[in-house]
């Protein structure tokens, strides 16, 4: 007995063990319990529509939800199979498009003598910083017209008089374009990083063995970059598959659903059971994709980069094509990075959509007071509107609280996991902290909705606290990964030499370990701020009312057709994000396109 007591005491004598146990318990509670609640909700009858439809007791177990969803009749086709196929096509298409665009730009920036490289590089990654739906909103602002959807007139129609066909404005095609473009900077950063770090001698030795440039690209460059391309594809695929905001903007006007928009529609229409099943399917798919990715990158052909005298890359001379190509690249990047901002600014000051005459312009949507604000359901322009300010205030507060929690937890998890690396406990905490990454935001919101509507946790429903909880868990994976990575870089001797001086744990952390990894820890705090500021899907089901947060407010504007307010709020969100990003740069020196730009 004393033996056991002694061992327990010794175990908890190490701060890292205490941390690990605390995080293990917390993470089990915060991610496994919701998951189990959701699983059980897939088999139970809920109050409202389901109770009436099936004439069964609330809470009784049933397989009816599965039958309805997978039956194969019209209901199941409309509510499951078609959205599934749509999601699949969108995910595949955007994955391919993202890689083609990102890869092409990466090749030009790293391997050719293109002009204005640093400009193209920094402007090209800009859309990745903005929320994905900004591009979707931009797309509709540009191409909507009197013949399709809601009939609002967009910029192209009003300036050139051209009405784009419906498939171009709404549906799968624009979704692929928007998601593909949004994630192409991500492909660019990954592929570009590899192209840049790839030893030039690998290609040079093929040149000497008389291989043509095309053969080199085909047989050497592409195969070496291929693992990265595939894993990029899978990541874009899963992001595209679970994307919620883009299909809302580009699908709802023509009643086109993907799995994630359908999930929300089903839950809001009272078919919770079926909604939860879709959420579960998305989660399984997420796990599957990560599994494929890990299996693929772990194969024997994959390699560790041997560094040698590289950096002596001879750039491909584009000769005559250089200027035209550079100009095309600049126009392309500017169109998708800067023009949207201009368009939002413009859209937010016109009274009647589609009319860009000076007489049709007004600042009322920004600073108008009661009476001048066009029956918009708002009592004043957004800058004078208390609802907007409290929504913005809540979102910023949420971002800060979440950042504090996530940043600190990530750092502590990093410390504890590295200290006890190799033990089962540390592995369990590390993978639990990573687990939410596999879950699409919409599904994750759904899981928490299931918890908040269950008997035991009713007090959480519609509170600020549940938003903090869901966001903290959802954004933890990145922070814990970067915490682990930054702590791995510190040699154990550094802490040990302080232990020998008898320095207490807290002092060791605050005086030695944190200052060493200052910038990466700081970015662990700042990135969740960015994520919260642009998140919609995670919160949309959990907010007490739509105008509770700025991002959900924006979506309610969109759903009710007040595009001017929508554009104004979008612009506001982008401005906040840019400020945070610049702050991050200043404080940490980290930047989106660092290490690749020309």
């Amino acid at each position: 007995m004393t033996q056991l007591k002694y061992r327990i005491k010794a175990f908890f004598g190490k701060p890292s063990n205490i941390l690990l146990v605390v995080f293990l318990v917390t993470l089990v509670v915060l991610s496994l319990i919701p998951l189990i609640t959701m699983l059980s909700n897939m088999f139970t009858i809920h109050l409202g529509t389901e109770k009436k439809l099936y004439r069964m007791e609330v809470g009784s177990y049933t397989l009816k939800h599965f039958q309805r969803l997978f039956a194969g009749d019209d209901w199941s086709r409309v509510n499951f199979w078609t959205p599934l196929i749509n999601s699949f096509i969108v995910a595949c298409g955007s994955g391919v498009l993202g890689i083609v665009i990102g890869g092409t730009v990466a090749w030009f920036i790293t391997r050719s003598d293109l002009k204005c490289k640093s400009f193209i590089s920094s402007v090209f990654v800009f859309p990745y910083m903005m929320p994905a739906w900004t591009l979707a909103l931009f797309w509709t602002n540009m191409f909507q017209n009197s013949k399709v959807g809601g009939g609002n007139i967009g910029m192209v129609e009003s300036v050139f008089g051209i009405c784009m066909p419906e498939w171009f404005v709404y549906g799968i095609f624009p979704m692929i374009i928007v998601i593909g473009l949004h994630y192409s900077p991500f492909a660019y950063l990954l592929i570009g990083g590899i192209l840049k770090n790839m030893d030039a001698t690998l290609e040079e030795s093929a040149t000497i063995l008389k291989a043509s440039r095309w053969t080199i690209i085909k047989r050497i460059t592409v195969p070496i970059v291929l693992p990265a391309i595939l894993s990029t594809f899978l990541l874009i695929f899963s992001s595209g598959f679970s994307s919620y905001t883009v299909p809302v903007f580009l699908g709802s006007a023509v009643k086109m659903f993907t799995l994630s928009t359908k999930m929300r529609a089903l839950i809001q229409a009272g078919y919770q059971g079926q909604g939860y099943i879709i959420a579960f399917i998305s989660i399984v798919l997420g796990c599957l994709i990560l599994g494929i990715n890990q299996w693929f990158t772990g194969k024997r052909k994959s390699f560790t980069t041997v560094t040698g005298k590289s950096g002596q890359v001879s750039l491909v001379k584009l000769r005559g094509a250089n200027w035209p190509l550079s100009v095309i690249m600049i126009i392309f990047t500017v169109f998708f990075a800067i023009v949207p901002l201009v368009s939002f600014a413009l859209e937010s000051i016109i009274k009647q959509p589609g009319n860009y005459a000076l007489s049709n312009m007004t600042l009322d949507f920004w600073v108008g007071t009661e009476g001048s604000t066009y029956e918009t359901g708002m009592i004043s322009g957004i800058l004078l509107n208390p609802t907007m300010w409290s929504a913005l205030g809540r979102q910023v507060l949420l971002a800060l609280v979440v950042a504090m929690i996530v940043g600190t937890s990530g750092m502590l998890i990093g410390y504890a996991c590295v200290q006890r690396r190799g033990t089962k406990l540390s592995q369990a905490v590390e993978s639990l902290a990573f687990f939410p990454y596999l879950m699409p935001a919409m599904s994750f919101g759904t899981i928490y909705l299931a918890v908040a509507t269950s008997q035991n946790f009713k007090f959480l429903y519609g509170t600020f606290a549940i938003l903090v909880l869901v966001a903290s868990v959802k954004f933890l994976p990145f922070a814990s990964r970067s915490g682990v990575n930054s702590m791995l870089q510190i040699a154990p001797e550094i802490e040990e030499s302080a232990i020998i001086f008898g320095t207490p744990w807290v002092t060791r952390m605050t005086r030695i370990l944190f200052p060493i990894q200052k910038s990466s820890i700081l970015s662990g705090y700042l990135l969740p701020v960015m994520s919260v500021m642009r998140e919609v899907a995670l919160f949309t089901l959990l907010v007490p009312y739509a105008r509770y947060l700025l991002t959900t407010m924006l979506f309610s504007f969109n759903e009710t057709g007040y595009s001017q307010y929508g554009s104004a709020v979008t612009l506001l969100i982008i401005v906040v994000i840019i400020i945070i990003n610049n702050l991050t740069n200043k404080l940490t020196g980290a930047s989106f396109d660092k290490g690749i730009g020309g």
Partner: protein
Amino acid sequence: MPEIILENVTKRFEKFVAVENLNMKIEDRGFVTLLGPSGCGKTTTLRMIAGLETPTSGRILIDDEPVFDSKKGVNLPPNKRDIGFLFQNYALWPHMTVYDNISFGLEMLKWDKAKIRKRVDELLALLRIEQFEKRYPAELSGGQQQRVAIARTLAPSPRVLFMDEPLSNLDAKLRQEMRAELKRLHSDTNSTFVYVTHDQLEAMTLSTRVCLMDTGVLQQYDPPLTVYGKPANKFVASFVGNPTMNFIPAELDQVGSKTVTFHMLGKKVTFTSDDQPEKCGKKLLLGVRPEFLPIHKDGPIEGKIYSTLPTGMETTVQVKCGDTMMTGVVFGSVDFPIDSPVNLDIVGDSLVLFDAETGKAVAYGRAEIE
């Protein structure tokens, strides 16, 4: 037959001059090493001959054919120069097996399958890597990767083989082994080798000629023993040889037709050379290799033991004579107590006299101390 000629080759990166006005002739079937400290322009020179780097100006001929000529605008790409290149980090393609790596160059030459198979087998046997044929580079050790890289380079039987510090990533023992193998390979393959290294021992042991460079400028281009025995200047003398040459400060008295007299360590010295000494200033340096500095009880130079470093086969002895530290090598294991007085002699006829100001060699010969 391939003979490589460089005429006034210069390479600038922005303002930095990597190679300046280099003139050199590499004979057919020679084994030439480009030697120098890091950053001296040797790799750049190699890459320019191979065509991986474009010179700023000058002319390069391989086998009487100009492959680069800045005046006529000739610049053949590397694949038209019929060369092989062995990179420092091997540059094996990680996604191909050993077999695929070696056969790649032959496929590019459109050889038929059976012929490729035969040639690859030959090379696998030559480099003793038959059992690794189906492995990927990541599954090989450094030495094995090195052999695969050599096999890949040799496969198309290039007439000229360029090597960029190919042994520097290997451990000491393996390096020794590969050195011997490279030398064999050179005589077996009948081709011209151009080899970059910063290791003077490698240059001495392998090459037929050493091209010593410093800060982009050619210092000396001679057979290794000439470089060792008759260094053109102080830089060459101190770069080649280990332990390094002793430089003893001296004051010039008189220059005769084949003699120079000077004062050194408080003694009068007469230096006799076979040739007329070059012009020189008042201040001189007498360069003495450690092996010409025996410890001798009748030796004219008195000093105190500073340290002895026995290795077994030989012992390096450092002796302090006044303010000058001198290093000698004694055959066998000897140990002297620190600070014990010893007498040194200067022997041999491979001493070098340098001008202390310019660093240039003034005369080669023997010295007599009074």
